[in-house]
Structures are given as structure tokens and as C-alpha cells.
């Protein structure tokens, strides 16, 4: 990772996230992201020798039994969609060229 974010780095990230940013926003976010990176560097500099690692939960991911639970009625779900095809599908703009 770079020690600071350039406008090109921000532009690349924005492209992956399908975001369109103005030149002013590129500048602003490059500065803010660099700030976050500097904070992370500070955390990394803390002497943690002798401190055991911890992760989210010591016991690991909770698990459920393999039992089927009721799904949501299709009409209720499709009512939330911006587009449906009338045949039970979600409808989206064509993706293949």
C-alpha cells in the first residue's frame, strides 16, 4: 500500500466502486484517506510484543443446524424491487453487450 493516497489511487478505487467523483472530490478524498492511513500507521507502531492476538470472537463463528426456515413470500419481496418482469423475476437493465 502507498504511504499516501494520490488522486490516481482514489480514481482507481472509485472506478471499482462505480463512483463518479469530481476533481475536487478526488483531492478531498485523497487527503482524507491519507489521514486514515496515517492513523493506521500509528496503531501499527504501538509495541505489542508480548500481547496475544485477538480476533472478533474467541469461540469462532456460531453455527446453525441445517434446517429449512420459511422464506419471504415472493410478492412481498418483488414489491420492493424497482423492476419486476411479472413472471417472478427481478428485472434489470441488460448486462451483456
Amino acid at each position: 500500500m502507498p504511504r499516501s493516497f494520490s488522486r490516481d489511487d482514489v480514481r482507481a478505487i472509485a472506478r471499482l466502486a462505480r463512483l463518479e467523483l469530481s476533481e475536487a472530490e478526488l483531492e478531498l478524498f485523497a487527503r482524507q484517506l491519507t489521514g486514515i492511513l496515517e492513523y493506521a500507521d500509528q496503531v501499527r507502531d504501538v509495541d505489542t510484543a508480548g500481547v496475544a492476538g485477538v480476533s472478533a470472537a474467541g469461540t469462532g463463528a456460531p453455527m446453525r443446524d441445517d434446517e429449512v426456515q420459511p422464506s419471504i413470500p415472493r410478492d412481498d419481496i418483488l414489491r420492493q424491487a424497482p423492476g419486476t418482469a411479472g413472471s417472478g423475476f427481478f428485472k434489470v437493465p441488460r448486462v451483456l453487450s
Partner: protein
Amino acid sequence: MYESVIGLEIHAQLLTQSKIFCGCSTRTGDPPNTHVCPVCLGLPGALPVLNRRAVELAAQAAIALGCTIHPTSVFARKNYFYPDLPKGYQISQYDRPLATGGSLQIATGGLAREIGLIRVHLEEDAGKSLHEGFPDSDRFARVDFNRSGVPLIEIVSRPELHSAAEAAEFFSRLRSILVAIGASDGNMEEGSLRCDANVSVRPGGATAMGVKTEIKNLNSFRYVQRALEFELERQTAVLEDGGRVIHETRLWDPAANRTHPMRSKEAADDYRYFPEPDLPPLRIEDAWIERLRASLPELPDARRRRFVASYGLPEYDAGVLTASPALASYFEATAAAAGNAKAASNWIMGELLGLLNERGIGIERAPIAPSALADLIRLVDSGTISGPTAKAVFAAMYTSGRGARAIVDAEGLARVDDEALIARTVAGVLAANERAVRQYHEGKRQTFGFLVGQVMTAMQGRANTEIVNRLVRRALEEGPA
């Protein structure tokens, strides 16, 4: 000369009732979007909870493949945009997969080789996009999320396969194992088992890898073989013409029998993987692994070796009979009930599979039960019916579902051992075939077989051949010269 280098990535749907992170059903064939909920639709605030059975099946697959299962593995988000991926990321595993290492033995051209595995990891499937087939498909696509969140394992081989035939054999062996342990149904038509291949060629003797392409959509053994044959030939031709292979994803088009470019990979994919914050690391204790190991059924390879060793079957027969667990079990049940493994193997591989394959029926739905086939074998072994009669009885059993004994009794097919009856028939046949009898006495001894055949025909093939042989010979020797 160019050398082929192939690695496979195989996705198998795990045989669970419910999805990997929610309780929606995994059943296929239902109307679109009937097995969906906030979790598998990626609605804000929904949280995934891991399905224990999915972990167990994945771990059993890893054990069967000789992998090292890691006590801690980590789920990660693979971020990309596509309409059938509602969260905008797929929950997968990245730098800390469930299992690594392991191998799978293949045998092509009589040569056995171990193909190394890189990893086995758990992930969720995406939904299904329908791009074509509707009046407005030029402008819209349709999405069905029933498949979204169905549990998968991804199995990645080392690039150690060197021909299309080896790759097809690897895929086939892997499927047999996954089906045998009940981890997957291996149904390729329904997409339960899918294969992608990384393919490159390099000059013989070179150690550096050539530029590879990734071939998608290889959902049958035949497609794996044909697609790789095409692609290896294509790449070799490009290099021989002084060109260079482009790093890209290509799609196999079975109708056109060729691969064609799908998208360039020159700019490497950037999935921005990061640990899934909604799921703590997956921890698997040794005791759990040992329980899963202990509950694994016999693997196809071991079963094949046992069929050779304990039933005395030829390698080839053992290979055919262990191709599916159901077939192997059918054979074992028949052999045990009949007390004759060789006969069981012959009937199953010959008559039974012949009829089933002709009609496209799986062994699970064979109209003759193992115990019924065993009854038929015992009737032959006890001399109650002759070999040719047995084939007719088998055909009648297959179409009518009746038992061998019932058919033999009803049709009067039992072997005739009555010497007086056979002797009368022999006398009649000899009298009717004076010319053949004369030729026999003139030294043309092959007419003996002809006369035996005539007697058998006269007795509808049911006479005891031994007695017929003896009586025909005696009649000829005793008769007038």
C-alpha cells in the same frame, strides 16, 4: 513440441437442505425467487449465520482428498458488481481457506499419477441471470435468487495436468469421490458441479509457464476434454505462428466446438478481498475432524481395490462397478445374495447396464432388484435353467418385473433332464437328418455339432446340454454305419 499445462477449478454444490448463511431451501426446480430472504437477497442489516452441515460436508471432502484442514479459517468478501450478486460481494475464503494441500490419483493410458491440490474453500453461490429468451431481452435481463447463498466448495488443482484426457479424468475422479461421500450430487446438468480450467502451453523442456487463458462453462466430462483439446491446439498454433497468447477468459461454446474470448484479464481483477466482518473466523477442533473422518464411507479407489482383491474381479470390471456408489452397492448386494460375484458382475455389466443405458435409466431405478437378479443367477448355477434360457428370463424380468422362478415355472422354461424324453428327440432328429448322420460316419465329424443344435432347437433350448451331447454321440456310435 509443446507441452500442455492445465489446472482445474471445480465448484461443487454441497448437499445441504438449507443455504449456507440462511434457512432458505436449496431445492432446485422451483419457481424463481421463492427461496429468498433478507440474508440471501443482501438486504441492509441482514446477518449471515453459518450452516454447520455445510462445514461438515466441506471438511469431509477435504479429508477424502487428503488435504490439511486448518483449525482456523477466515471468510472474506470478494467484491464485484453483477446483478445476480445482490450484496455487491460474495462471501468466500481467501488467504485463510478451510483446507490446503492434498492430492487426487488419476490413471490415463495405464499410467497412475498423483495430481496435487492447492486448496479447498467454502463459499456461497450467486443468483442466476437470464440474458435471453424474453421479448424484451434486448433491453433487460432477469434475475432469480433461489441459487443465491447455496453452499459451494471450490477445489483448486495444481497446474499438473498435461493433457485434455488427464483433465477429464481428474474431473471424473473428483466427481466420484464427492458423490461417494455424499458431499454433492454431482449433477452437472443442473449446475451442481462446474469446472473452469486454466490452460497454457510451453515449449517442451521449458520450466517457465506460458501465458494462460481461463476457460469457463465446462459442465461435462466431454466438454472438458473437447474444450481443452481445442484450446491447446489454438494456443500452440498462435505460438508457432510467432504470435503471443493473450491472458483472457474464454467461454466454451459446445455448439460451435470452440472457445471464444469473453473478457481480457490484462488488467488484473481487483476484488478488494477483506475479512468478512459479519462472520467470526471458522474454528474446527481436531475432535470434530476425527468424527467426520470416522464417518466417511469407503472411497471409490479403496472400493475398486477391494473389488479386485476380495471378489477376484478384473481391474476393468472393478472400475466400471465402482463408478457410482449406487452401482457398487447394487453389485455387492447381488453378489452376496447370489453367492457368485463373477456371475453378478457379468450380468450387471452386460445385460443390466446394457438395457439401462439404452433407456437412459440410472441404476437407482433399475426394474430388477439385486435379490431378484441373484435368484436368476442361482437358477443358472443350480442347473435349473440353461444359459440361453436365462437371458430370455432376464429380458422377461426386466419388462414384467416378475421374479425369475415365477417366469420359469409359468413358461415351463426349466431345464429338461429327462433322459428318455431327450433320447426320443435325438432319435427323431437323427431320423430326419439321414444325410448329416451319413456324413458323420464318413468322417465329417463336425456334423455332430449340427445335430446337437437340431436337438436343442427341437427342445426350445431347454434340454440339458450335457445329456444331449452324450445321447447324440451314443446314438451315432450305436446306430447303423
